[in-house]
């Protein structure tokens, strides 16, 4: 414990870059601007989650199944933690540049492993609390529970992220291990990771699907929901007894299981920490290269090729940015190939959603293709090698635009394929066709440019793990929030405004995105040198 404390202090200082903000005058000034924005952003998210929770609670209360709500939210947080940890885990636990420094200290490897687990936990706890805090508040407002509920809810909230995090860490580390074992096969690790991710998404859909017919669901909603939740979240019975039932023994069991899982995982990772790290990070060196004539490229092509190599060298970077694209193709192909148009028409017509739903489809597609631009972290990923590109006799806009090209080379073909497939399958015509063709592609272009601008202005080159810039940086997060806001806002307005058969808003959005993208493109070209000087 005595040796764990300095490592935890290090974690605390490193977390979210707080220490740098406090001790670097330049960053302190930026922090003064960013912190209020961040607080507003968090409050906004809490507000949105709270509104959703209110809607769900209202419905459940009406059906007399309000007690299911805390379990449902615990399950949602757990699945979120599982999904967000699974590919971060290997990186966060093993691939850190300070590994040599930390392991050379007189601290046991199991303590280092425990500190890494706790660091992961603190990040996942923040994600879980974003769901659990508003959920608890809304539930308390509806159910008016006794004092024991608040204590149980707080304790379990701290414990909820642990087990999914441990499970995800095991899956993530095993995937990385398998990828490292197959390192002779190019991109084996990456393909394995994609398969695991698709398996997790598919599995969660399968487990979450309700058994029986719709009628049965309505007849006994609480029973059905309960059985669904216990399949998605095996600890739901213990959680329900502890939090809703006020059973202290179940509360202790729930928290105890979480603690046990954390201790076991720390022990397990600690026992194999050095060996596993050496294996996962080992690089093959054959030393048998025979020099032959080399192919030359133009400067522009060389810069884009470098971006592709950088991109494909990082599993977490690819998974974070390509998964939405892959999922969009899977979803569109599934819809186009397996759902007949007349069946879709009937379902939508009966639900009274035919007009707005079709008009909202471009926004759904736009969200999937534009959600996580590669550009949001591509500047930061230059890291300590930035000197190479900055020392080259090329204008800064060239290498910045190469980052944009990589993003567009990924997004635009997928947006086009998705749009054409949907247009053909759903026989979309007229203004809807224009929106379907242009809105996702323009949203992808906008998010790529926005990510680039944000990352040029807010970058971080001293990272010790790629996860920090790929998943936990402003450059990576801001475009996600902006795209989400645009898609939800656009979708909402589309549903509300019926002009042109609900197509007015998507078309206006497409036009606005084109203007915004052109403006940002000019901005990058004009400001590139100045921004690069500040890096």
């Amino acid at each position: 414990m005595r040796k764990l404390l300095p490592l935890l202090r290090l974690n605390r200082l490193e977390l979210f870059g707080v220490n740098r903000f406090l001790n670097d005058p330049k960053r302190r000034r930026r922090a003064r601007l960013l912190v209020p924005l961040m607080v507003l952003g968090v409050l906004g998210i809490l507000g949105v989650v709270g509104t959703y929770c209110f809607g769900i609670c209202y419905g459940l209360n009406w059906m007399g199944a309000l007690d299911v709500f805390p379990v449902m939210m615990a399950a949602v947080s757990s699945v979120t933690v599982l999904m967000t940890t699974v590919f971060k885990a290997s990186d966060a636990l093993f691939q850190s540049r300070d590994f040599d420094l930390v392991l050379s200290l007189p601290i046991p490897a199991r303590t280092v492993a425990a500190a890494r687990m706790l660091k992961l936990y603190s990040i996942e706890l923040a994600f879980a609390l974003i769901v659990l805090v508003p959920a608890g508040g809304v539930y308390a407002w509806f159910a008016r529970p006794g004092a024991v509920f608040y204590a149980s809810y707080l304790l379990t909230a701290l414990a909820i992220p642990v087990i999914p995090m441990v499970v995800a860490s095991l899956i993530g580390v095993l995937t990385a291990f398998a990828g490292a074992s197959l390192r002779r096969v190019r991109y084996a690790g990456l393909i394995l990771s994609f398969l695991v991710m698709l398996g997790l998404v598919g599995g969660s859909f399968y487990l979450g699907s309700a058994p029986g017919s719709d009628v049965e669901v309505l007849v006994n909603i609480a029973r059905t929901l309960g059985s669904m939740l216990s399949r998605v979240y095996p600890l739901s019975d213990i959680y329900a007894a502890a939090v809703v039932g006020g059973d202290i023994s179940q509360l202790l069991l729930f928290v105890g299981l979480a603690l046990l899982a954390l201790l076991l995982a720390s022990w397990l990772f600690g026992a194999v920490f050095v060996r596993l790290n050496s294996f996962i990070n080992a690089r093959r060196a054959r030393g048998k290269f025979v020099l032959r004539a080399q192919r030359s490229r133009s400067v522009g092509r060389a810069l884009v090729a470098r971006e592709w190599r950088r991109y494909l060298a990082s599993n977490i970077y690819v998974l974070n940015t390509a998964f939405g694209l892959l999922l969009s193709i899977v979803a569109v192909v599934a819809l186009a190939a397996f759902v007949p148009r007349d069946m879709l028409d009937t379902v939508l017509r009966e639900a009274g959603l035919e007009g707005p739903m079709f008009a909202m489809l471009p926004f759904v597609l736009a969200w999937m293709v534009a959600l996580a631009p590669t550009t949001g972290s591509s500047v930061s990923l230059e890291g300590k090698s930035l000197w190479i590109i900055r020392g080259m006799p090329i204008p800064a806009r060239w290498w910045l635009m190469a980052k944009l090209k990589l993003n567009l080379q990924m997004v635009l073909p997928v947006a086009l394929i998705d749009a054409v497939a949907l247009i053909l399958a759903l026989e979309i015509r007229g203004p809807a066709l224009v929106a379907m063709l242009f809105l996702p592609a323009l949203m992808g272009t906008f998010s790529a440019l926005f990510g680039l601008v944000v990352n040029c202005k807010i970058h971080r080159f001293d990272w010790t793990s790629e996860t920090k810039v790929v998943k936990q940086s402003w450059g990576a997060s801001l475009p996600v929030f902006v795209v989400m806001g645009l898609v939800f806002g656009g979708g909402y307005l589309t549903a509300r405004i019926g002009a042109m058969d609900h197509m007015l808003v998507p078309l206006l959005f497409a036009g606005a995105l084109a203007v915004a993208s052109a403006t940002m493109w000019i901005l990058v070209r004009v400001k590139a040198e100045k921004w690069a000087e500040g890096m």
Partner: protein
Amino acid sequence: MLDIRNFSKTYRGGKRAVSGLTLAVEPGSIVGFIGHNGAGKTTTIRAIAGVLDFEEGDIFVGGHSIKREPIACKKMLAYVPDNPDLYEYLTGIQHLNFIADVFEIPSGDREERTREYAGLFSLTGNLGDSIGSYSHGMKQKLTLIGALMRDPKLLVLDEPFVGLDPVAAHVFKELLRKICARGGAVFFSTHVLDVAEKLCDRVAIIRDGRLAAFGDTDKVRGDGSLEELFLELIER
């Protein structure tokens, strides 16, 4: 070849790293840049290479201002930093090819130069391996090959001998002399005074961001050794 005029750099937060530095490096000469830790050597070298902006003074490479014509300057110089942070996701040959593409070195020349320099540094066999698998010394060798293959008019090096084995260090010194014999110029920082004394035509000693001594090595050293002079200047 290199003309530093009244160069000053103050970092954000008020720390003045270099103050009014003026010196020139003529074609065909090797100039050693010596100073204690934090004296301003790396700041000066990074500014020459165009990777650090500055407000006061100017730096000219082959008559071009690094402030106003950075591209023209960068085409003439090759910079090697004190820590070889390279693209670990590339193999050695991919890194060299990237450099060659950006500097538009024709295919034939790049193969010939790669063969020559990689052979001299005994790195040819490892060029197909990922840079992530390289030792510090191998990365340093690869950085030097990348710099040399552009055939630069000016080499700007920050502690270039750190991490090199004795054979590689010897090879590199010979290459520096060849570059100078062809009319190129070398400006490098070092803490190894023995190397500076034997290799450099001229030395510049920087102390707390200000030039403390600059001139022909023999004249600056006088009757004593460079080490004695350096210690005397630093303690002053």
